[in-house]
């Protein structure tokens, strides 16, 4: 019989990664975690939200988050030995990467890909952010490609430009993994289609149960928490809601831009 309630864990450490970006570390209690899967993080008496895992070590896991709304502000203010609850892992993660897999992360989307970036050829990781001070894992993945929208670090521009360069240079590339804003993932899908590369993306939606019961995270005909959050691009192509609509807490379907704004206050 299944048990899906939050397991309380003491915070081992909270580290600052970049501007407004922190990682909380707890003991690794996840059974058979696959990168791309997610966990529900509970702050008692506050709320519970889904997060990817950015550090997957034998004894501990790290969850990297951007301080935006009430929940993440509270989490960033917590201290060693404070208690949070973890349930999961949930959903379908990425397939096993080989060394010629390209891994692309935009903004906080890098966090759920980081354990995969450790496995691929060092120069096959592409990490993007708006600006240098918000760039994740600059020191952790020294040989990765970096882009910033404003050119303050790495190449000025978008991660998709590096992807296109790499694919057009006929580098040996087996597949592409991607997590970031949906407009970026949508572009990555287009590029992969052009170069006939398999592509997997990781979707984000507001969640309640996390285990495929409530329907809150529906995106078209897909149950994101249970059939995703990682989808092969062919499974979201033509989905009328991907990159267009998402559901806020009431279940109301709104444009993705409104959803992102609402999420940053939650």
């Amino acid at each position, binding site marked *: 019989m299944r048990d899906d*309630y*939050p397991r*309380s864990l003491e915070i081992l450490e909270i580290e600052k990664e970049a501007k407004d970006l922190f990682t909380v570390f707890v003991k690794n209690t996840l059974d058979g975690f696959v990168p791309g899967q997610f966990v529900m993080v509970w702050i008692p*008496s506050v709320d519970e939200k889904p997060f990817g895992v950015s550090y997957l070590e034998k004894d501990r896991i790290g969850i990297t988050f951007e301080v935006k709304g009430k929940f993440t502000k509270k989490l960033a203010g917590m201290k060693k030995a404070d208690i949070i609850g973890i349930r999961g892992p949930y959903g379908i993660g990425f397939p096993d990467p080989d060394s010629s897999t390209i891994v692309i992360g935009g903004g906080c989307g890098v966090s759920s890909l980081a354990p995969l970036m450790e496995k691929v050829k060092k120069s096959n990781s592409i990490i993007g952010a708006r600006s240098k001070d918000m760039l994740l894992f600059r020191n952790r993945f020294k040989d990765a490609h970096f882009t910033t929208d404003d050119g303050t670090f790495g190449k000025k521009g978008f991660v998709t430009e590096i992807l296109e360069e790499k694919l057009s240079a006929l580098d040996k590339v087996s597949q592409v993994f991607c997590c970031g804003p949906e407009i970026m993932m949508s572009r990555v899908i287009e590029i992969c289609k052009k170069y006939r590369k398999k592509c997997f993306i990781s979707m984000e939606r507001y969640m*309640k149960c996390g285990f495929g019961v*409530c329907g*809150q995270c529906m995106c078209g005909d897909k149950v994101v928490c249970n059939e995703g959050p990682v989808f092969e691009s062919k499974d979201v192509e033509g989905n009328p809601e991907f990159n267009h609509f998402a*559901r806020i807490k009431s279940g109301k379907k709104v444009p993705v831009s409104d959803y992102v704004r609402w999420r940053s206050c939650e």
Partner: protein
Amino acid sequence: MITIKSDFLGMKLSNPLILASGIMGISVGSMKKIADNGAGAVTIKSISKEERLGHNNPTMFSFGDVFMNAVGYSNPGMIEAKKEFSDIDRIGVPVIGSVIGTKADDFVAVIEELGDIRFDAIEIPLSCPHTPGFGVLAGQGTPEAAYRITKAVRKATRLPIIIKLSANAPDLTIVAKAAEKAGADAINMGNTHGPGMRIDIDSGKPILDFKVGGISGPAITPVTVRCVYDIYESIKIPIIGTGGITTGRDAIEMMMAGALGLGVGTGIYYRGFDVFKKIANEIKDWMEKKGHLSLKEIIGVAHEG
């Protein structure tokens, strides 16, 4: 030839299994998935007059056979719902529209607003155990309230009306009779139980953000069987048994107690979206073994002799 086809309130169902309200009923896409996985009919997540955010997370969790939730009737409100459910024909099985309100007029307003949507029946839950202003917490489960609300709703629609009751009611058969007298076409017996509470022993805090929540899952099956059994003899209108059905055996028991329809919700958590196909096959296998040809031979047999 064995058949589990069911004629329920004029709906021709391929089987008596009905997706319960509140689970996977958020969109046409989610309900189509359930229909494709073998449900005979589906019920939308309840719609109120205004948009409701519901409670904070955690809203759901499980401890073995016990599943708890306090979602708090989150829904986009009746105006958005009209858009959301505009193409329900795509679902491919009959669709029941669930409508909630804090007073009788609200139920009527929502039913009227959703009048153009081609629902096959309207369900009125008077039984949520964990949302202030609604159901049990608003006293909607008393015989008087059940009569008053059913009467108001009866005037607002020609569709069959299903009144969803709570197992908590001390005078269950009186409530069921009151709904029947006021014009209900069926009783859904019933909602989640409790409310209950579980506390995280490390933080000392209740796990549900709303602290208390309704209890579902296999653990509540015996209570539902008893409630269906209790009201079966006191009313003439058909009953949907909802609460705990997870296996073919649970479904057969529920029918033997008197249920014509079988609500399945949390069963999805325990056995996946295709719990509907699985239960249907288990019912058929059992019927074959026992030599039954149709569900009529099973329904209410526990009352004989």
